[in-house]
Structure formats: structure tokens, C-alpha cells
């Protein structure tokens, strides 16, 4: 039988009601709902899945996606510390950055925010990131995925250089590489031998979730 608190939590997140969502989460945290923390985490994740679908299907827009992500983050900030030892609230780590010569970061930031809300730990290298720094971050953080972003077509060549650097350092198989950005395409991802292309933050996160599960 569905738990009322969990149902309300999900409903209020999908209604973009921050106060109500946080209120339901607090009931869980205070032990007044008969819900264990993991169930609440799963409910937040399930709501985010619906948010993602609504965005992908064009029913929701960026502003709603971002705000839903913020509500989920507020919920996870309360639930996270109560997760049982050994239970993982993180799906894994994603290293993200914008390639050298490119200073645009809105898309990357939205992806990072959404992925974080979805349960990943994000290591954000920022913008104009040199090839070697991407490689060093893969060695240091052993991420599920390396997310490389770029807006401009010509700076896109830098993506190929990053992947080449991973090969050169013999660490290409340590992490999947996913790319995204206004000028990029699926075809380009194949050309530079990235593992995937993300047309938007949701698809990117979904792809990486798939990798995290099979890792």
C-alpha cells in the first residue's frame, strides 16, 4: 500500500512545491512518517525520473527542470546524512569540464546540477580546461564518466585531443566519455570515439546511470 508521505513528497516535487516537499522530507527525517530513509531517497529519484521525461517530451522547460533539481537537492541534503552506513546515496562520480578555448558553461552547469540531484558526485573542472587536467582528474577520481562540454564547433576538436590524451596515458578504459554542447552531434561523438553524446542534461544523466549500474 502506498505510503502517504512518500506520495505527497513525490507529488509536491512534481508540483514544484519546495516547501511542501521539504516538509514531507522532514517528517521522514524526524521519524514521524513510518518511512525509512532509503524509501524517501527512492521517491525523490522516482520523481526526478518523471521530471526528466517531462523535459524530454517537451512538456517541461529548462526553468522547471532546474527548479525541480533544486528541490531534489534540498531533499537530499536532509536525507543524505541519515543514509545507513554502507548504503550508497551516490551513483558514482562524474568529472565534467568545458574544453580548452571555450568559456561557455551554462549547459555544463545545468548537467552538473541535474546529475548531482540524481545522485552523482560531481567534480567540476570548470571552463577552458586543458587536456592534461581532464586526464589527471580521471586518474584522481576514477569517475563513472568524464563529461566534456563545448559550445563552439572549432573548440570541439579539443574533445578529440582529450580522448587521445586518455589513450596516450593508457587510461581510456578507466572511464566512459560523454560529450555535449550546442554544436555537437551524435555523429561527431562517433568520429572522436566518445562513448556517448548527450543532447540534453536528462539524457546524459540517464546514459551515465546505465553505465553506473553495469559498472
Amino acid at each position, binding site marked *: 500500500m502506498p505510503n502517504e508521505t512518500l506520495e505527497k513528497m513525490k507529488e509536491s516535487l512534481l508540483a514544484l512545491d519546495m516547501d511542501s516537499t521539504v516538509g514531507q522530507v522532514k517528517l521522514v527525517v524526524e521519524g514521524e512518517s513510518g518511512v525509512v530513509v532509503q524509501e524517501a531517497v527512492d521517491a525523490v529519484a522516482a520523481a526526478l525520473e518523471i521530471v526528466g521525461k517531462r523535459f524530454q517530451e517537451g512538456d517541461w522547460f529548462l526553468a522547471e527542470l532546474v527548479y525541480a533539481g533544486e528541490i531534489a537537492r534540498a531533499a537530499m541534503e536532509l536525507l543524505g546524512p541519515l543514509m545507513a552506513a554502507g548504503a550508497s546515496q551516490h551513483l558514482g562520480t562524474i568529472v565534467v569540464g568545458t574544453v580548452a578555448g571555450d568559456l561557455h558553461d551554462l549547459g555544463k552547469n545545468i548537467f552538473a546540477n541535474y546529475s548531482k540531484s540524481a545522485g552523482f558526485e560531481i567534480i567540476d573542472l570548470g571552463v577552458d580546461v586543458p587536456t592534461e587536467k581532464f586526464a589527471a582528474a580521471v586518474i584522481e577520481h576514477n569517475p563513472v564518466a568524464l563529461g566534456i562540454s563545448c559550445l*563552439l564547433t572549432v573548440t570541439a576538436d579539443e574533445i578529440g585531443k582529450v580522448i587521445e590524451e586518455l589513450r596516450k596515458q593508457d587510461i581510456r578504459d578507466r572511464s566512459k566519455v560523454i560529450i555535449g554542447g550546442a554544436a555537437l552531434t551524435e555523429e561527431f561523438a562517433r568520429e572522436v570515439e566518445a562513448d556517448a553524446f548527450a543532447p540534453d542534461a536528462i539524457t546524459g544523466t540517464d546514459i551515465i546511470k546505465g553505465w553506473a549500474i553495469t559498472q
Partner: protein
Amino acid sequence: MNFKERLLTALNHEEPDRVPVMGLIMDPSTVNQILGKEPVDFVSMIKNPESRDSIRDMMNDSSFWNKTYYSNFSDVMESSLKLGFDANWTIYAFMQLAEDSRSSLGLVWHDVYGRIWEMGSDASGNMLLNYSRPLCPTEAEWETWVEEKAPLFETVIEYATDFHQNLAAEYGDRIMPIGYAAPGIFENSWQPIGFVEFTKFIFQKPDFVKRIIDFYTDFYLRYLEGVMQSGVEVVLAGDDLAQKTGPMMRPDMIEKLLGESYRRIAEAVHKRNRKLIFHSCGNVNELLDKFVEWGFDGIITMEPTANVKLAEVREHVGHKLALIGNLDVSHLLVKGTQQEVEEAVKKAIKDAASGGGYVLSACHSHPFVDPIRLQWMVEAAHKYGEYLIRA
């Protein structure tokens, strides 16, 4: 027809002698190639401890800034003339260098609106500049910022008016300067705060968001008045409302937040018998009806990489909007062959130019747009763009 008659005829949805061609904000890299100038490696000068402080002080002197900025923009207009454009987008900006420990260079640009711009260099050493982060992420910081900067906002309007006046006086008999008002109301509202925080405010503090938008609408209208007084006959309002896959906000939310502001802008422009062209990056397909409803005369950009198809836009809006742009800058005007450029020009003309109402142009600009490809675009327009359309 001369350049002016050609452009205005097209914007009036009548057929001029041939399809006009318009230039955008040309990047220094493109300009230097056209004029045969060497890049100014500004970032290296900033990195050099011996020149850093003097460069900062010099750039923060407003008369030096304005002189340098005008000179750079003169180069844009000269390049545009050399390419044979009928019109070119003109844009004024006022920025100051500020110390910033979060930046690898230790210095960033602040604009008057509360945005931080980071510097970088392209492969030739030309400076690249991009909006990086907000200066006023909280309500209190935003209030303080606009209060402190109030006199500067007024000064910037004066500078922008002078800038456009000088450009119109110097170039107006050879090319149409397309005047540009301040950064768009939506951009100016969210960028000084940051998109995530602004989004939160939309849902949590709607009154504050309304105050921001009202503030920038009033500012925008005064700025626009200055631009129009300068003699510029067509103005361009730039406000990125969309990203690659669609509008950044639900269209009815955009209407609620910004619709009245856009209507006021269109009214102000039409009151002075000028034309208003609206620029937004991204997939604007869902906003086309709004553009008509708000009273815009035309739209520019229509990025093909954001799935905006010129023929479909024309079919959707008919001749209620003049259409400008749509030539790809991800491949075509960067690395495309002459044949590819010719084919794209022919297709654009075929898709949108019948009956007037189309101005050929790149969909956007960036440092790697190649002047030779721009030249091919102009040549193809001359070859295939004569009415009756031969494409």
C-alpha cells in the same frame, strides 16, 4: 537600389532588387583576417606582471575604453563594407576590469549590469570573452548593485547614444548600422543573479523577479530611445530566450514575465517609425507566435543546429515577420566548400525570400567564422538573390 532601400524594402516584405546581406557582431579574429591586422594579445599583456596594472588602469579609464571600443567597432564596419554587406549589427558595451581571485588571470571584466566576463585567447591570440558568473546572486546584493550603479547606468546610456551616433554619422551613407539596445531584459535579469538562483526566485520570490524585470524594462526603453535618436533606422533587440532544444522557460511563463516588456519595446520602436528585429539563440520554434504577438518586425538567428528550419518558419509565420539569418556557423561558414555555401544560400533564398522579407546572414558569429566563406555567401547572394529569384 542602394543598401538602405534594399534592406528596408525587404523588411517591409516587398521585393528589393536582390536579397540584402547583413553582418553580425564580427569577432576580432574574423575582422583581423579581413583587414590584414595582427591580433592584440591582450591576455598575455594581462599575464605579464610588468604590464598588468597599467593595462587595467588604462582600460578602466572610460574615455580610453570608449575610444578603443569605437575603433574596434570601426574595424567591424570596415570589414563589413569590404565584404559587401548591406547592413551590420552594431553593439555597444561598457566594461571594467576588476581583481578576482577566482579567475586564473586574477582579472575579470565586470559589466554595468552585474555580470562577470572571463577572458581567454583563441589560437591566434585574439581575446575571447564570455559571460561566466553573476555578481549579485541574492536579492540584497542585486538591490545594492543597482543602487550603487545608478549613475553609471545613466552614463552608459549617454555613451551608447554617442557610439551609435558616431557610427551612423561615419558609416550611415555606406552601410546600415543596425542599432542595438542594451542586453535583453531576460538576460539582464537572470545573468547578474545566475540561472539557478533566478529560477528559484521565479518560483519563490515572484515580486522580486517582477522588480528586476521592471527595472531593466525602464532602463532598456531609455537606452533604446538614445539609440534611436542617433539616426539608426533599424534596431535589434537581443535576448536569448531559448537553448538548443527549446525555450528556456515555458512560453506562457515567458509571456507572463516578459510579454508586456516586449510589447512596450515594440511600441516604442514603432512610435519612432523604426523597425525592430529580435535575436534569440536556440530553438525558438515554440515562440514564433509570441514574436508576432509582441509586435516584432523580424527575427534574426534561427540556428539550424537548434533545429530551426527556415522554410518551416516562413510557412508558420508567413509574412508577419521578416526573417534574417539561418546560415550555419558550425560547419558551413567555418569549413564549408564554396559549393556548399552556394547551395545553402540558394536554399535559404528559396525557402524564405519570395515576396521579400528575407535578409541573408550567418545565424551567429564566433571567432572561427571564416571571412572567405562570408565572401562566398555575399557572392552567392549577388549571383542567386536577384528578384525574380533565380535560386
